[in-house]
């Protein structure tokens, strides 16, 4: 499977380039790549507490670990799974046994060879409670047994069929690290995880930056990379710049070369700057959406949920707040998920219909402040907002929603809080509306977000089904889909599941999880790695 892929390489690059061109329109005639230089990358995401994405497992870890850790498989820009550290794989008939063939010529940067034992050690590391893995742990949840059949052959035994296994393996949170390195204590491994990637973590100045230096012996580029061998850059300085305005200012001044989490207005003004280009790489998994908590009044009544959705028109707000950088989504799933179904008809705005619905639902009196009441109780919706997760434009959008819902008689109480308090509000069920991003590769994210099992809190209090959607039909659909390996059959199941979710008015989709990069024109060959749209600098080089 390896060889044909390499032949296909030029094609996939062309496809990728075409796709990128849609956003950036910056395909100049490619100059000859030059080696060397240090690229400065500024991230607005939180500084990871641990550079090993097995520990915990959040998006910021995924972003940086993509530079030094690699996964068994990757995805190409069409969403197809492509080989990486694994060259080939087969699934048994019953879907319970998977055999992976591994590359036999790859070494970790500490010299440890990459082999089946290494893969085994990694999966065990994820499953070890001491690791305290969260994302990766869930991804490999169905794996019961791992067997190193040969040095380059590893066999996974599953407790139930898992159609999302390959997608799970493509995520950075399930990346493969040196088993020798994993033997070290966790603090050390957090400081300097060892993988097979094109760069090596050499230094981490807390609150400031991580220094990544080129792996000279690198030979395991994913199948869709532009070149082979070692990376072109000497090093990457991975800076943590939490303030968006500063980040953009630093890009303008040339102190950094690439920024992520670019704000809509910055993207908009950057369009006029000749030396700055944009890369839009929406994250996979769920779209950004507002969940309506059906687990408690007043949203336990479908009429009230529909009335809410009818009462707000988010489109003009998205247009103005995002400066045309975000497109309205009418799907629960990200636009990069092929299984996503867009249903604009469901999410039409009609305040009059909303009022009628509320009248029907018994919220037919209006108090002195203009809010609807029922049995003396005000139609009041609590909306905790994580200031760490919602960008200012999104918070403003929520304020607009607040304003237009008020016209119909909803009182929306916006509560901007820090991350811990925000989770606290969710865990204690003190919310009616919430917007929580969720990144996972593949449509299986629907199972995590809307299966009734996900209402049961994890020991830490966490649960993913924030709409508190509990529907046995939906549960069955999602479980079946996750165990169905036939792509088109799965597609259908997911389509049916999505219609249950949207027709029940459990969610108000807004737009894809925004993931805009702005970068200096001197940076060439930079792209986002398709699985979770993390940046990769393997092909990148500095033109001056």
């Amino acid at each position, binding site marked *: 499977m390896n060889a044909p892929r390499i032949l296909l390489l030029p094609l996939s690059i062309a496809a990728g380039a075409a796709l990128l061109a849609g956003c950036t329109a910056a395909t100049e005639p490619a100059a000859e790549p030059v080696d060397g230089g240090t690229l400065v990358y500024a991230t607005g995401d939180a500084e990871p507490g641990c550079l090993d994405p097995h520990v915990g497992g959040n998006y910021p870890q995924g972003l940086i670990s993509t530079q030094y850790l690699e996964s068994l498989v990757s995805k190409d820009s069409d969403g197809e799974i492509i080989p990486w550290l694994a060259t080939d794989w087969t699934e048994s008939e019953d879907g319970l046994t998977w055999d992976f063939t591994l590359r036999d010529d790859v070494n970790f940067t500490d010299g440890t060879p990459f082999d089946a034992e290494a893969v085994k050690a990694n999966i065990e590391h994820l499953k070890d409670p001491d690791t305290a893995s969260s994302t990766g742990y869930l991804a490999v949840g169905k794996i019961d047994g791992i067997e190193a059949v040969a040095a380059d052959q590893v066999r996974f035994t599953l407790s139930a069929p898992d159609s999302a296994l390959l997608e799970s393996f493509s995520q950075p949170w399930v990346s493969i690290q040196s088993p020798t390195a994993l033997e070290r204590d966790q603090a050390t491994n957090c400081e300097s995880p060892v993988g097979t990637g094109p760069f090596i973590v050499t230094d981490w100045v807390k609150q400031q930056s991580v220094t990544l230096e080129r792996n000279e012996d690198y030979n395991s580029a994913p199948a869709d990379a532009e070149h082979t061998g070692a990376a072109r850059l000497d090093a990457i300085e991975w800076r943590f710049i939490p303030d968006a305005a500063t980040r953009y200012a630093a890009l303008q001044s040339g102190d950094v070369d690439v920024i992520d989490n670019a704000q809509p*207005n910055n993207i908009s*003004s950057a369009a006029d700057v000749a030396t700055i280009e944009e890369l839009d790489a929406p994250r996979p998994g769920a779209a950004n959406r507002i969940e309506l908590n059906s687990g408690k009044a007043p949203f336990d009544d479908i009429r009230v949920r529909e009335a809410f959705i009818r009462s707000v028109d988010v489109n*003009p707000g998205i247009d103005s707040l995002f400066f045309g950088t975000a497109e309205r989504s009418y799907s629960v799933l990200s636009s990069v998920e092929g299984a996503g179904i867009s249903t604009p008809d469901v999410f039409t705005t009609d305040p009059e219909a909303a009022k009628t619905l509320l009248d029907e639902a018994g919220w037919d009196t209006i108090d002195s402040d203009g809010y609807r009441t029922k049995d003396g109780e005000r139609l009041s919706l609590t909306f905790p907002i994580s200031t760490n997760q919602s960008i200012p*434009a999104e918070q*403003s959008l929520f304020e607009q929603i607040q304003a237009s819902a008020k016209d119909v008689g909803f009182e929306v109480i916006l509560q*901007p809080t820090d991350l811990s308090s925000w989770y606290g509000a969710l865990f204690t069920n003190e919310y009616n509306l919430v917007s929580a991003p969720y990144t996972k590769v593949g449509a299986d994210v629907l199972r995590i977000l809307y299966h009734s099992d996900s209402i049961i809190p994890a020991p830490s209090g966490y649960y993913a089904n924030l709409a508190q959607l509990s529907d046995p039909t939906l549960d069955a659909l999602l479980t079946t889909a996750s165990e169905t390996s036939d792509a088109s059959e799965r597609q259908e199941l997911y389509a049916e599941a999505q219609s249950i979710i949207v027709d029940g008015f459990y969610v108000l989709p807004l737009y894809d999880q925004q993931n805009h990069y702005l970068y200096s024109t001197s940076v060439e060959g930079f792209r986002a790695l398709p699985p979770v749209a993390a940046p990769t600098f393997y092909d990148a080089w500095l033109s001056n």
Partner: protein
Amino acid sequence: MTEILAGRLSQPAGRAPGIRGRYGWLRNTGVMIALAVLALILTAALAPQLMTTADPDAVAPAEAFQSPSAAHFFGTDESGRDVYTRVVFGAGNSLLIGTAATTVGLGLALVLGLLGGLGSRLGDFVSTRIVEVMFALPGLLLALVFIAIAGPGVVTSTVAVGLSTAPGYARIIRSQLRSVRNASYVEAATVLSHSRARIVWQHILPGALSPIFVLGTLGVGQAIVWASSLGFLGLGVAPPAAEWGAMLSSGRTYIDVAWWLTVFPGLAIVATAASFTVLGRALNARTRQEARG
């Protein structure tokens, strides 16, 4: 930051007569301007309808980011709301936070200060230690922890800001009480056979606490600036309430496309804080002049 400005309250004034001649021109002009600014802001706070007819919360996404014009004096914000109207309506919230926070801080400080300035040795010891500990904790840490405990909101920000200003006030009140307690006129009253309670009530408290008004005046402006910093850290008042600090920090996001979003609320904060400072200092000078030649 009030302590800095009020730090000299407890010191005997040496030079007051000279002040009048030398700084009279500046002082009078400055105080006039400050009073005018504060009158304007107070009007906005108490009767915003007099200054604008628009609704501060009325969103109009289609009209977002309009630069200042005849229709929108200060332009419109990211949701198409009229910035002028929001600045006018924001005066109420900002002043409320400023005055309430100062009141909280002064109230707490009064308890600590009275305990330290008039109480027994033990009382003084206890109050001094408490003040020392409060001082040693950076104000923002105090505020952050408090907000984390009580959850963000107007009340919490207010109390948080109040808490962090309290030790400074307490120290001033205590030293003021102590210096008045040892003042010659208090001894003179003792010699006149007045009772301790009467002396405390008639001489010590009025003498020592008269600067509280000055402290408060100086403090309000600083409290507003302080509260705006909490807003920047995402811990300010809940939307959609118009509040200058919140407007300033949300406007900062759009500083590259809409300068007016930060400039007007920012100017409002600076003008208010500066006016309160000018007024407070003028009051302070007057109090000192009254107290001593």
